[in-house]
């Protein structure tokens, strides 16, 4: 019965269709140099950041305009986060953290525009950012502390008998970092967008169409929150990893 009703109304679920990467110009295979919708929306994200931070603050008004105060708020927010989590020493690496935060938050919000493409929903994008953080932090730790960086895995506050076991767990959790770091962002964004699409498919049934529209609105609001919180979480975890590299001893 239900199946018949579905085939009559033509209920179709394609929640994953929206994440498909396609070449912008023409058809054909995708090489590393092919300009795709992914490239376009990443470019738009960079352009928006440029307009916000460079053009928006170029007048340097004493009483900031609206755009300038958004830029100043973002700067102050990230600066305080780096200072609080990574300490005074971590402030040296503030530009990188700021770059990550601005790119992720702008890409997330651009992905929420209807018919746009959410670049951060692809693990290929987020894993590069997470790996850069992971490799960078590891190199930084070894450069700063030499072999002493390995103290990070030797929990000196634990009982001696437990330490080798804890060391194994710490090593595993260290290498899982880039995995969870990247999949958290991509998975959250992907799941949010897919759920909106599933609700949108239910709108084809007249009886529950109002309910599904309410669902879309609710999920959209939720995704607005998630878009910001995930950028915040990605950045703050970067700061935490940075702190581990700067002060490896427990």
């Amino acid at each position: 019965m239900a199946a018949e009703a579905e085939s009559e109304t033509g209920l179709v679920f394609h929640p994953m269709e929206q994440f498909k990467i396609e070449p912008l110009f023409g058809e054909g295979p995708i090489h590393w140099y092919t300009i795709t919708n992914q490239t376009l929306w990443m470019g738009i994200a960079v352009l928006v950041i440029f307009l916000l931070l460079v053009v928006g603050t170029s007048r340097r008004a004493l009483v900031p305009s609206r755009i300038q105060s958004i830029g100043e708020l973002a700067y102050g927010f990230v600066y305080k986060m780096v200072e609080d989590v990574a300490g005074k020493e971590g402030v040296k690496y503030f530009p990188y953290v700021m770059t990550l935060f601005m790119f992720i938050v702008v890409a997330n919000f651009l992905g929420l525009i209807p018919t746009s493409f959410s670049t951060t929903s692809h693990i290929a994008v987020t894993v590069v950012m997470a790996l850069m953080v992971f490799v960078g932090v590891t190199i930084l730790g070894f450069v700063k502390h030499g072999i002493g960086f390995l103290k990070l895995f030797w929990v000196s506050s634990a009982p001696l008998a437990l330490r080798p076991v804890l060391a194994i767990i710490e090593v595993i959790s260290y290498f899982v970092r880039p995995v969870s770091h990247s999949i958290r962002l991509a998975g959250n964004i992907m799941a949010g967008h897919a759920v909106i699409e599933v609700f949108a498919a239910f709108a084809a049934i007249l009886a529950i169409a109002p309910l599904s529209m309410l669902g879309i609105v609710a999920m959209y609001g939720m995704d607005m929150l998630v878009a910001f919180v995930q950028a915040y979480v990605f950045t703050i975890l970067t700061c935490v990893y940075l702190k581990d590299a700067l002060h490896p001893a427990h």
Partner: protein
Amino acid sequence: MEGDIVQMGAYIGAGLACMGMGGAAVGVGSIVGNYLSGALRNPSAAQSQTAMLFIGIAFSEAFGIFSFLVALLLMFAV
């Protein structure tokens, strides 16, 4: 009825993987609940711990996302 038993197994597995989301929900609920009860006891210390709250939520939530990923792999990749 088309499809084969491997397909059926994959779909059942994808459904089972969704149970992991329940675990993540319990974890996030526990973190936020404990944060709130702590924050209401000592509101002046609450502001400084919001970063820790979000880090905790992120770690807990990651495992729910992993289960979602497994479900996706079973649906589309296997």
